[in-house]
């Protein structure tokens, strides 16, 4: 039923074969073809820049004031690539294997292998652009290790890797803007896809400054609009991150796949009060050097540094001796929740665990530095001082950020951390060519569902975003556009554009006419509370059924009682937010429905009914080794399509990190 168009042949030849036989568009014809790229993060900016270089006429859209603000910029830890510069046994196959295993055997083999294949080129490309990755004294690139793997393959730029990669892609994009190949629209939000004769042919946008609706034609439309973690209200996403573009595509026929796969990141700064507007991540790379623990005694009142070693429970090292603190994110998050639920949590809310650097500060870095400086029998204070300097160089910006937010000094006292919503593996269903179920409509990066299965490994999001944008879409879109060269640009006065714009303006007018009593923010908060409590780190059938009813009721209330001040034709952030929250309230229901339908636990989806005696996830490969792709008939009425997942190159096993 769902044709994922995976090429025939051996897994390590598929992509090469595909590229060798894909249809091409000659340079003169590329000039005649227009491509719309919505979203300018890693995936969108790299795609737009590359398509511009190839000669297509590209338009980019972002809601921020510049492409450089896209939330890819906040990625901290690094980007994976199978370079094996460390000579520690890495290879394309190993990256492929780790990613499929990390995704709990719920991702598409062919896509993941392609991702692993192009990963090395990404690093080459970024270095050529002037991305200042961390280097060793010899002048060669440095690597660090991340969760869920046993090699060091993560390239990084301090704790700001996402920023550096995005600015690289952004500069490539701005170069194309300067050359006239790309036209850039900022502070524009896409509010509808225009479909003509079954193909995506354009979009309707709202100029967020003037409030004006505008129509744009494209022979193809590429969505690179990120994930939907903000459906939980509190997440590590940016305040503006939203599902609107993807959701409009879904409502126009694009299937939405595996929405229930949400990644809860284990190391975030805990919530401090009701005022909290977002959560801040502390990079996974910190787990390289920080040890996670809780007191062995319930309701411990002593300060962390006063609790002696033997009264601490390093629960990850205890439960998963071979991976220890570097277990994948889903495992680490659930383990933290388990300890806190059992009453061992720390801090005022008791919803936190310690991430402690003291041991490595002294023993790993302090001692190495001491021996470098020929200090014999150093005392503890000396070791701490020496170790601090090294830690500062590696994670200084993260430690500073922690201190600003909490007012505590993490060099002195352990960080308090707790899991938070971070990434969404689910997204628009795409085939091997990254085309959604709507012809000519593509989805790249976090916005699609493709490569991470049920759980994404650290430092793989940047890899996927750039792989899709730099190395996949430039080939696959040509295969579609080669047949479109005879299509003349469709004037935006066409009835389909007219109708789409009318739909958008109707919805905006309706929102503004409600004039109710409650703010948009209050609805978003309530939605987030339902989602987090009933569809968060642990889910069960009863809770999910309740959640669906509660979301329906909340939606009803929203459309009757929301208050949006200001006017339509002006800069009106409340109106922007209202549209986004309205979409989240529809997505939320689908997310719960998907979670309810998937009667198993896998990766980021944990159903309490399906766990082993030790509390580990219990996967059901017999019934659920498939992608769940949802087709929308009406809001509240979805049809499930399944794409079977076939593993020919990996032996499926229970996922163990013990």
């Amino acid at each position, binding site marked *: 039923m769902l044709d994922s168009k995976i090429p025939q042949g051996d897994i390590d030849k598929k992509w090469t074969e595909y590229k060798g036989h894909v249809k091409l568009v000659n340079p003169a014809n590329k000039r005649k073809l227009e491509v719309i790229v919505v979203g300018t993060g890693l995936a969108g900016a790299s795609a737009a820049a590359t398509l511009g270089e190839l000669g297509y006429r590209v338009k980019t859209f972002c809601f921020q004031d510049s492409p450089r603000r896209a939330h890819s910029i906040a990625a901290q830890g690094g980007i994976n690539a199978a370079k094996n510069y460390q000579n520690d046994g890495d290879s394309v196959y190993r990256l492929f294997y780790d990613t499929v295993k990390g995704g709990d055997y719920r991702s598409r083999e062919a896509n993941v292998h392609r991702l692993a294949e192009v990963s090395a080129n990404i690093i080459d490309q970024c270095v050529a652009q002037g991305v200042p990755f961390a280097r060793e004294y010899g002048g060669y690139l440095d690597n660090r290790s991340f969760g869920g793997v046993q090699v060091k393959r993560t390239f990084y730029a301090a704790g700001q890797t996402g920023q550096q990669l995005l600015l690289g892609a952004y500069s490539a994009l701005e170069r194309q803007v300067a050359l006239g190949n790309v036209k850039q629209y900022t502070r524009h939000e896409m509010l509808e896809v225009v479909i003509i004769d079954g193909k995506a042919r354009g979009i309707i946008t709202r100029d967020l400054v003037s409030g004006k609706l505008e129509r744009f034609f494209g022979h193809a439309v590429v969505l690179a609009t990120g994930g939907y973690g903000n459906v939980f209200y509190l997440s590590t996403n940016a305040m*503006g991150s939203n599902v609107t573009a993807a959701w409009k595509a879904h409502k126009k026929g694009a299937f939405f796949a595996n929405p229930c796969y949400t990644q809860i990141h284990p190391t975030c700064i805990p919530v401090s009060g009701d005022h909290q507007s977002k959560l801040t991540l502390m990079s996974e790379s910190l787990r390289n050097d920080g040890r996670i623990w809780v007191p062995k005694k319930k309701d411990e009142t002593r300060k962390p540094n006063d609790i002696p070693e033997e009264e601490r429970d390093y629960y990850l090292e205890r439960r998963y001796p071979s991976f220890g603190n570097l277990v994948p994110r889903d495992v680490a998050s659930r383990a933290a929740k388990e300890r806190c639920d059992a009453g061992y949590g720390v801090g005022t809310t008791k919803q936190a665990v310690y991430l402690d650097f003291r041991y490595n500060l002294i023993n790993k870095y302090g001692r190495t530095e001491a021996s470098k400086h020929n200090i014999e029998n150093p005392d503890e204070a000396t070791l701490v001082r020496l170790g601090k300097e090294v830690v500062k160089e590696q994670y200084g910006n993260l430690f500073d950020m922690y201190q600003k937010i909490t*007012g505590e000094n993490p060099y002195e006292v352990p960080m308090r951390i707790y899991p938070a919503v971070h990434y969404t593996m689910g997204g628009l269903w795409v085939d091997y060519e990254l085309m959604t179920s709507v012809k000519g409509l593509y989805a790249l990066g976090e916005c699609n569902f493709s490569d991470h299965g049920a759980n994404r490994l650290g430092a793989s999001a940047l890899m996927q975003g750039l792989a899709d944008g730099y190395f996949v879409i430039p080939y696959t879109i040509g295969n579609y556009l080669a047949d479109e060269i005879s299509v003349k640009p469709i004037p935006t006065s066409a009835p389909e554009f007219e109708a789409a714009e009318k739909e958008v303006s109707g919805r905006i007018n309706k929102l503004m006419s409600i004039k109710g009593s409650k703010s948009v923010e209050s609805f978003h908060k309530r939605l987030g509370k339902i989602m987090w409590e009933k569809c968060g780190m642990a889910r069960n059938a009863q809770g999910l059924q309740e959640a669906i009813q509660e979301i329906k009721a909340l939606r009803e209330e929203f459309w009757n009682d929301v208050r949006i001040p200001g006017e339509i034709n002006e800069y009106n952030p409340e109106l922007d937010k209202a549209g986004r929250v309205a979409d989240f309230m529809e997505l939320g229901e689908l997310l719960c429905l998907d979670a309810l339908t998937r009667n198993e636990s896998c990766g980021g989806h944990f159903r309490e009914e399906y766990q082993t005696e030790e509390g580990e996830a219990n996967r059901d490969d017999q019934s659920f080794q498939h992608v769940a792709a949802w087709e929308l008939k009406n809001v509240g009425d979805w049809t499930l399509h399944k794409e079977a997942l076939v593993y020919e190159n990996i032996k499926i096993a229970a996922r163990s990190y013990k």
Partner: protein
Amino acid sequence: MEHYNMNLTLKVWRQKNTKEKGHFETYNVKGISSEMSFLEMFDVLNEDLVHENKEPIAFDHDCREGICGMCSMYINGRPHGPWNATTTCQLHMRAFKDGETITVEPWRAQAFPVIKDLVVDRSAFDRIIQAGGYISVNTGVTVDANATPISKVNADKAFSTAACIGCGACVAACKNSSAMLFTSAKISQLALLPQGEPERHKRALDMVHQMDEEGFGSCTNTGACEAVCPKEITLESIARMNREFLSASVVSED
């Protein structure tokens, strides 16, 4: 750290759009926790305004973790407020005392016209980058990443200038509304790397030219920009830009 609550008086710049004149409005906010971020305090105020059927205050913000560069409030006479090396979103209320009056203004510069309230248009920065803030390399024409070793010192220096988030605090703090710290950060990053070498002269000339075209002022080396830069980019990069520009001007054939 002791938590406490506070009541504050806020004087906030309100301006309907670019064309209309702005003015200050005074607001009182109550029960603000010292644990809140500055923007969360604004969230509270805006919720109150919505409840009173008034228009909330427009301000730019997005990531709220100090890296996107979107937030841009001029707080009590200083961009991003009293803390050093901090963006507005990372400024927390424990920086203030109960009963204080806080004045909040937008970035003010000819090159950053106000869009609404505290929101300004910083697209001039994009155009400066478009003038040459890149290495002209197409996707695919690359050599192995480790083919050219780069000294760690230079790589680290390039990184520390590449850390610029493009927030515009440097312009806001400068008495001349100069964008030299921003422009020089990009010129420096690329001048420090071997990949940037082939275009370094053209880049310096073109980016400086665009910076002037956009209506930013010139630099008088007061150092206000580096004092307020959330990413602690230093005057060293401006000096490097001056050097790059001088040598580019000497060898240029135009």
